[in-house]
């Protein structure tokens, strides 16, 4: 009776051991493969055998964390849906945005611009194919533009100013515009909606009004598989015209919570996180720096954070008050103490990574609280009341500062610091932390604020597009930050001229006026931070937020 029982127990034990071994093997091989390829236990051994020799050499997989769903199923080149980063990976534009706004050839090998700056002729690269093998020609470019360009919702100048789009021959296309506007080329480098999609990507194929079916572009990457709110898998496009990617596959994993992204990096579940893909909180930097398997990559960003003064608030209509607020803010402390040194003190509206911004046209106010107090007194703000708030004709100087925390969590401690610094010079600031919708309502519509924190747009939108949308009247609405006919004329001049020198001169005087009038309170220029695992090689930062890394040069090695 006893012996069979022992044998049975041994059998069970060995079965369990085998099961464990199989699970281990399946778990290991699963890293490189999509989840549905986990095979039954008995093939596990074969997989382990073949993995190191043949497949792993080819199968270079990188896992990247993204904060929101990539939306591969709706990633139409001509629409504003899905992840912008993935747009730029799958689709190419006619031109590409290089360092400090330099426009580089992409699908267009070269281009000519007419004397009056209104006619653009693009010469397309020869022999380019979409990821399904369809050849790229001028008709395909025309098709891509015609799918969205008539939509009145588009505010891009290439859309609103376009008069005609003509195919000259198989590899030449011309665009005729109603005005001269130098950033046309910049707009054509955007991630969307200007990139080129294959006529075979819609149903019925080639119909400009056709329904979008699948994301087929000429980019280095193409969609392989997609699970909503979980992950998107991209593989190298075999027909790609440029430098072939080193990696064979990129897995984009959705991790919405910033802290979880940091933990996933630590555990090795993901290889890269950060930038606009999904921010890494500055508070976690000590943790990352302390982890030998991770490395922190910093690149100076192209945007800046600043505080808008409401020109309808009487107190803020006085130059001395605006100057005093600027002088009272300790920008060095914000960068050093609150941002963990990730960024630099603002020296104007834009950092020098932005086109037309130079060391010589950037001057801003320093940290001089005593001078700030003197300026306030000069503006007629006398003795402080019992709470330390300065008074003018009996009225205390009290301002409300609006901000939001959901998209910019760092704004709250910054606002609290500014609040206490302005209290030092006798200005009472009441903070109002709004949820994003209410915040944008206040910013764009109701103007219910005295001070409001905001930031400039990213890369290709600077400086022209940001100036046009915040320092220039749009349609019926007056300018948001500063309403002044002289400034608006200068901006019009800068964007309208085809002369580089004249344009630079116009931008120089725009920046000079901003300083003289203290049009806003400059705060800080953030750095873009990205964290990568040490096994990732070939890292090179991109020049736009939608191309944070040159994906094609990345590779993965052993830990």
């Amino acid at each position, binding site marked *: 009776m006893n012996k069979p029982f022992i044998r049975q127990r041994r059998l069970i034990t060995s079965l369990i051991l085998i099961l464990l071994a199989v699970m281990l093997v399946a778990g290991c091989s699963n890293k490189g493969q999509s989840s549905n390829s986990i095979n039954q236990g008995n093939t596990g051994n074969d997989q382990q055998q073949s993995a190191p020799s043949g497949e792993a050499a080819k199968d270079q997989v990188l896992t990247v964390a993204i904060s929101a769903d990539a939306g591969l199923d709706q990633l139409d080149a001509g629409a504003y849906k899905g992840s912008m980063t993935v747009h730029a990976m799958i689709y190419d534009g006619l031109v590409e945005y290089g360092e400090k706004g330099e426009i580089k050839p992409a699908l267009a090998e070269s281009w000519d611009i007419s004397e009056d700056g209104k006619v653009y002729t693009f010469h397309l690269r020869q022999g380019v194919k979409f990821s399904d093998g369809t050849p790229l020609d001028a008709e395909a470019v025309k098709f891509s533009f015609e799918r969205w360009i008539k939509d009145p919702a588009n505010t891009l100048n290439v859309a609103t100013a376009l008069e005609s789009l003509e195919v000259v021959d198989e590899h030449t296309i011309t665009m005729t515009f109603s005005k001269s506007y130098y950033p046309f080329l910049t707009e054509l480098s955007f991630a969307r909606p200007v990139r080129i999609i294959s006529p075979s990507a819609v149903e019925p194929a080639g119909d400009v009004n056709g329904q979008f079916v699948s994301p087929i572009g000429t980019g280095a990457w193409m969609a392989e598989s997609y699970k909503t709110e979980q992950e998107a898998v991209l593989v190298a496009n075999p027909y790609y015209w440029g430098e072939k990617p080193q990696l064979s596959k990129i897995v984009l994993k959705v991790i919405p919570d910033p802290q979880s992204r940091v933990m996933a990096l630590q555990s090795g579940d993901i290889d890269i996180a950060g930038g606009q893909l999904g921010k890494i909180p500055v508070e976690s930097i000590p943790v990352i720096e302390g982890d030998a398997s991770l490395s922190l990559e910093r690149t100076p960003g192209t945007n800046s954070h600043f505080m808008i003064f409401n020109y309808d608030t009487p107190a803020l209509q006085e130059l001395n008050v605006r100057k005093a607020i600027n002088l009272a803010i300790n920008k060095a402390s914000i960068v050093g103490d609150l941002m963990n040194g990730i960024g630099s003190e603002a020296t104007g509206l834009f950092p020098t990574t932005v086109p037309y911004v130079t060391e010589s046209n950037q001057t801003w106010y320093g940290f001089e609280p005593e001078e700030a107090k003197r300026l306030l007194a000069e503006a007629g703000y006398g003795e402080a009341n019992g709470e330390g708030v300065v008074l003018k004709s009996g009225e205390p100087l009290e301002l409300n500062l609006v901000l939001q925390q959901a998209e910019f969590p760092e704004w709250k401690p910054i606002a609290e610091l500014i609040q206490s610094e302005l209290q030092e010079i006798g200005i009472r600031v009441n903070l109002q932390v*709004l949820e994003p919708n209410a915040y944008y309502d206040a910013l764009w519509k109701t103007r219910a604020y005295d001070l409001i924190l905001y930031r400039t747009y990213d890369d290709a939108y600077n400086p022209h597009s940001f100036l046009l949308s915040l320092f220039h009247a749009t349609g019926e609405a007056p300018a948001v930050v500063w309403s002044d006919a002289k400034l608006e004329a200068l901006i019009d001049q800068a964007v309208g001229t085809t002369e580089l020198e004249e344009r630079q001169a116009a931008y120089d005087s725009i920046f000079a006026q901003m300083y003289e009038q203290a049009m806003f309170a400059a705060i800080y220029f953030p750095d873009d931070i990205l964290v990568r695992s040490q096994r990732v090689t070939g890292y090179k930062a991109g020049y736009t937020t939608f191309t944070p890394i040159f994906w094609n040069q990345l590779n993965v090695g052993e830990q």
Partner: protein
Amino acid sequence: MFQTRLLRTKAALFGAAIVLLFLLVGLLAPWIAPSDPLQIHMEHKLSLPSLEYPLGTDHLGRCVLSRLIYGIRTSLYYSLIVLAAVFSISVSLGLLAGYAGGKIDHFIMRIIDILLAFPSLILSLAITAMLGPSMKNLLIAFVAVWWTGYTRVIRGMVLEIKESDYIMAARAAGTSHFQIVFRHILLNTARPILVLASLEIGTIILSIAGLSFLGLGAQPPTPEWGIMLNDSRPYIQTAPRLLLFPGLTIMLAVLGFNLLGEGLKPSNHGLDEARKEEVAP
């Protein structure tokens, strides 16, 4: 049975001690707090507990202990306001619905049914989101949502008392409605209402902290426990103590009020005993 009773008394005393401690510390905050809870010292940010800062400092170099102590004022003070408002509404409506009955009763109860159909937290979230985030709006939202449950309970008590013999007698003796409602019914509901209220404070404290955590309540730089928790969230790996201290404080405060409330509640055993004695002879 005797043991459980003693245990409850002990627990209630413990609860009362905690509550008393919180009340005292909150009342004497300016004398007890080691530093100014609003004073920012960037050079001391995230420092460890020391003699100057007994619980260390937060990300802006503010004294954590002082902020917790001043936070008592925010939490308790506003909880009491909510409580007073909720009970004044629900007592008057409950008395009205229960005593008047008929169409008035029907009308009030249907409104309550509609409001109770929504989860209360979601409803108060929606109201604060609509009115804009501020402590005042948060209190309005709480009161607007919470009066319903108590009105129902109080109406039930009134209905029960209304049918009792002494009310019949009073009515037969020609006592006015006003006298019956205020002298007989209201006074007889007073004790259960007080018990209910003391049990409620814990929940209110927790909800205020919860909505402030979400950024809908007190606005910075007001020291408030929920806000302190939210502000410390990014430091969960580098300085977990920043989350621990406000978390423990909230727990302790809620525990104190709940224990006290439980102690004040007449024990079920006690009631059963009393009934048995009534029946026995």
